[in-house]
């Protein structure tokens, strides 16, 4: 009956659509790279988070080990509080440091975790104590100009 | 309310907007088990009257009573119950163009009942047989002629054996043979099933031939006359005579209202 054919064709249409969705989500997007699974939460405080966004990757030695899940401001210390979800398969020593780095020259920012040497590891809910804020371009330029000016000043001062 | 009256129209006035009334203080009774025809020219409100009976619109004033119960358009359950006892034949059939002939007639049975398919099969073929189209069951709607379409629509309208069958212009646009067939079907169905039939038409000869009671309406939604076919044919009232004899001019004027001819043709100015 034509009815059966129609049902088959519509079924094909739906399957095709879902396949396209899977294709886009998996092959052309980041669904496989961090699909939730088992993870534990860490927090870190920064004076300046720069351009860090939620869902930015957390990398160690360049390998993605987790994601930034929340960014907030501590009302008392006025520091940025960043929540990290780390894959349970990776553990880091208690004195590891977190830096906000930039991918490439003008790319997105991410959190880089450098392991320390402590025997004990960071557990769920712990805070990463050592942090380095993002580099702000204006401060960098200001520093550069200041150091150049200081050089020039010390030269003239020296010659006198 | 007489027990053999199926429908009573009691001082009904109705118009789609307040300014123009299509029906004006109309009072009628339709007897149970009889064929009643409503005759009149176009725009006299006969189709509107049918719609009021079916509960499609609500009267602005007056009552419509079906088998003792008031037809209240806001009561969906009531309307649902009424319409299950009602079969309607639309002017051009109103068949569902995406279904076959068989599926069209089976439609009310499938939608409104839980009958098993084998039983539906038998009923559909019986209904089609009653209208003489049992052999056309497998055709598509696009393949049937106008006359056939109307007969199929009739089969569909009687699929649930309704108590009231309404026919909207059943003879319009048919050749003489088809008209004869349609008239025969209407009368036979009425007698065999004991249903009440309401025919809205402007075809005088056919209607007079099959009706028990005739109502003549005129523009402005008034009843001009009613009675048996013989009474109306013998009437001496000018409006009735003009209609039943088909005279071009009489109480219903030939000319549409216009200014004096001299004015339109610019002849008056010379004088």
């Amino acid at each position, binding site marked *: 009956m034509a009815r059966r054919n129609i049902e088959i064709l519509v079924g094909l249409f739906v399957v095709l659509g879902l396949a396209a969705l899977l294709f886009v989500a998996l092959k052309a997007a980041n669904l496989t790279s961090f699909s939730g699974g088992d993870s534990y939460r860490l927090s870190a405080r920064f004076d300046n988070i720069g351009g860090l966004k939620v869902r930015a990757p957390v990398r160690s030695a360049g390998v993605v080990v987790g994601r930034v899940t929340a960014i907030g401001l501590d009302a008392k210390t006025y520091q940025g509080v960043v929540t990290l979800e780390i894959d349970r398969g990776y553990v880091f020593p208690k004195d590891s440091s977190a830096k906000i780095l930039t991918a490439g020259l003008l790319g997105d920012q991410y959190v880089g975790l450098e392991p320390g040497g402590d025997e004990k590891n960071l557990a769920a809910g712990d805070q990463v104590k050592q942090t380095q804020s993002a580099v702000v371009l204006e401060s960098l330029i200001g520093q550069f100009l200041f150091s150049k000016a200081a050089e020039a000043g010390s030269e003239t001062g020296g010659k006198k | 309310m007489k027990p053999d009256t199926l429908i009573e129209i009691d001082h009904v006035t109705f118009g789609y907007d307040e300014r123009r009334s299509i029906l004006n203080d109309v009072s009628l009774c339709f007897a149970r088990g009889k064929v009643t025809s409503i005759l009149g020219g176009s725009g006299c409100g006969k189709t509107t009257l049918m719609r009021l009976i079916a509960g499609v619109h609500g009267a602005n004033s007056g009552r419509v009573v079906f088998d003792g119960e008031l037809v209240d358009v806001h009561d969906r359950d009531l309307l649902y119950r009424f319409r299950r006892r009602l079969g309607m034949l639309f002017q051009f059939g109103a068949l*569902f163009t995406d279904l076959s002939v068989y599926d069209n007639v089976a439609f009310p049975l499938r939608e409104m009942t839980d009958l098993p398919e084998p039983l539906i099969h038998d009923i559909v073929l019986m209904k089609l047989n009653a209208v003489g189209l049992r052999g056309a069951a497998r055709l598509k709607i696009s393949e049937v002629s106008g006359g056939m379409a109307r007969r199929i629509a009739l089969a569909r309208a009687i699929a649930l054996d309704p108590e009231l069958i309404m026919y909207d212009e059943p003879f319009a646009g048919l050749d003489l043979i088809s008209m004869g067939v349609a008239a025969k079907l209407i009368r036979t169905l009425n007698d065999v099933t004991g249903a009440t039939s309401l025919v809205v038409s402007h075809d005088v000869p056919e209607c007079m031939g099959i009706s028990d009671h005739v109502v003549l309406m005129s523009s402005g939604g008034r009843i001009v006359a009613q009675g048996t076919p013989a009474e109306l044919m013998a009437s001496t009232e000018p409006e009735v005579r003009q209609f039943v004899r088909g005279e071009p001019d009489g109480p219903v004027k030939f000319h549409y209202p216009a200014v004096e001819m001299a004015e339109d043709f610019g002849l008056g100015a010379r004088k």
Partner: protein
Amino acid sequence: MTEWLAVLGARTLAALRGWGRSAIFFVDLLRALPQALRRFDLVVVQMHAIGNRSLVIILASGLAVGFVLALQMYYALVKYGAAESLGLVVNLSLVRELGPVVTALLFAGRAGTSLTAEIGLMKAGEQIAALELMAIDPRARVLAPRFVAGVLSMPLLAILFSAIGIIGAWVVAVGLIGIDAGNFWSIQQSGVDAWRDVGNGVAKSAVFGIICTAVALYQGYETEATPEGVAYATTRTVVTSSLAVLGMDFILTALMFSTL
């Protein structure tokens, strides 16, 4: 002067009436949804008419857009030495914007007009009145299944458009231009977020599906039963759907993709 004001007033009232009627129509449509879902066989038949029959134009357009987008973006990106990001740029353009929006516009033109014409002609042929007099609610039997079918088909069509567009871009980028295939995919994978980008795109297309299908059904239902009436109604379907989609896209993009 007063005439002009009276005309303006009348037009405004008429427009308000139109808005009111469409709102009531939409609510009635939603109320008829449970019944339509119970008769899913009707929905399936409509999905064939609405979805399957749109596949050819959607896939062809998607492929073409993918090709063209890749070519044009390449010329711009290569100046900044960022040609490797070609896949990423095309992907985001498609998944976030072009997929849902262009599919919606094509849908309005292809499926929307056919729905409007079909419903309008059914109304003209008194099929709708026949259903009512058979004590069957035409909204539940005729309109709601088509609505469900449209809302379900749109996201599927939109993602198919994006997917085939990405494939088209791949053909141009890797096949024609010679960008490294591995980079093409990996840069996309790291740059496109499945939930934020793909997910929001799907949400957008669902909203567009609701808009386009509801507009098409309303125009068909309210049209005059004449040839001019139906022609006018189909035009209004395309114009109204398209404007609504573009307007809604602006709002949704601001909501979903703003960097707040």
